[in-house]
């Protein structure tokens, strides 16, 4: 992985900060004028959900960062276990996350050191 330049990182960071705060400020400005149940809000929710789902599946199936060095079976298996535990425990997020993370860590541990 090539070392990204500090200027690039600062610009990326600033872009992300603006792209985040703009929604907060808009929410304050619109609060009381536009209902949170307007159809456009549904659309915003759908776009955010689809992007986040895409990001998560990308991190599980085709990771670009540090997870790229881990076996795909470990990632998919741990994610499957997390979802299974979540639904088996009446949608308990914490238990699902703990189960999936622990399984993933143990898998890597037993499978030998990862570069």
């Amino acid at each position, binding site marked *: *992985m090539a*070392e*990204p330049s*500090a200027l*690039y*990182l600062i610009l*990326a960071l600033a*872009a*992300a*900060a603006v*792209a*985040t705060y*703009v*929604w*907060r*400020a*808009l*929410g*304050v400005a619109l*609060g*009381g004028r536009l209902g*949170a149940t307007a*159809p456009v809000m*549904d659309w*915003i*929710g759908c*776009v*955010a*959900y*689809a*992007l*986040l*789902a*895409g*990001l*998560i*599946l*990308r*991190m*599980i199936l085709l990771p*670009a*960062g*540090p*997870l790229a*060095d881990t076996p795909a079976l470990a*990632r998919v298996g741990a*994610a499957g276990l997390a979802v299974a535990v*979540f*639904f088996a425990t009446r*949608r308990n*997020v914490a238990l699902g*996350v703990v189960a*999936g*993370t622990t399984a*993933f*860590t*143990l898998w*890597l541990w037993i499978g030998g*050191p*990862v570069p």
Partner: protein
Amino acid sequence: MTPSQTPPGPTTPRAALVLGLRESIGLPVAVLAASFLGFGSLVAKTDLPLWLGLASTLTGWALPGQVALVEMAAVGSSVLVIALAVGMVNARLLPMTITLMPLLRAPGTRPWGLYAASHLIAVTSWIGLMQRGHRVPHALRLSYFFGFSLPLWAMSLVATAVGFHLAGAVPSAVSLGLVFLNPLYFLLVMCVDLRRRALLLSLMFGAVLGPLLHLLSPDWGLPATGLVGGTLAWLLARRGPPRDAPGHG
């Protein structure tokens, strides 16, 4: 800490602030700490500097967007694409902020206070205020909200730094486990809402399109996934059977 009886509501801004401080300590802080440990580890394992992680938590403080930022900076996405993707994934802050405003805004509340508070709206602080804010007198809720969210924000910064250093100190299996914690957490938090058809469809389209479009274009894949998948899901859900029928899993 277990409150044995319902205490009388706060009567001064200071008391409201302190009440918020006390109520944020506990599960909300613990959940956030774990998530930001994972974020700090992600930054370290991606070979990005600590200041980037800290500045991101300081200026963004919305974890899905922060993870997207790190993931995209790691592959060298253009700044424009990063802004688009982070903007889309964080667009959910708009409805969240809108729904909090009637709770926070009282006669005489200064606008700058609300604009400052809006920077501290995260899922944790949002739920905290929606669930507990009603017990606090209207004029004092902004103080309560600052009391509740500032420790969460501070803890996130500390956890980012700790996670960053932890990544180099613990075995690789453990630090990679921390990195994997956030995708799993987001995945399950999204599964909580699946009773709503539009969100279920968005999740499905996003899950399929995300990896596919990434193969087509690592740069534009994520924003395209959000726009195409989200819009398709929204259109389909509007045409479908009556939405939000309760009781269906």
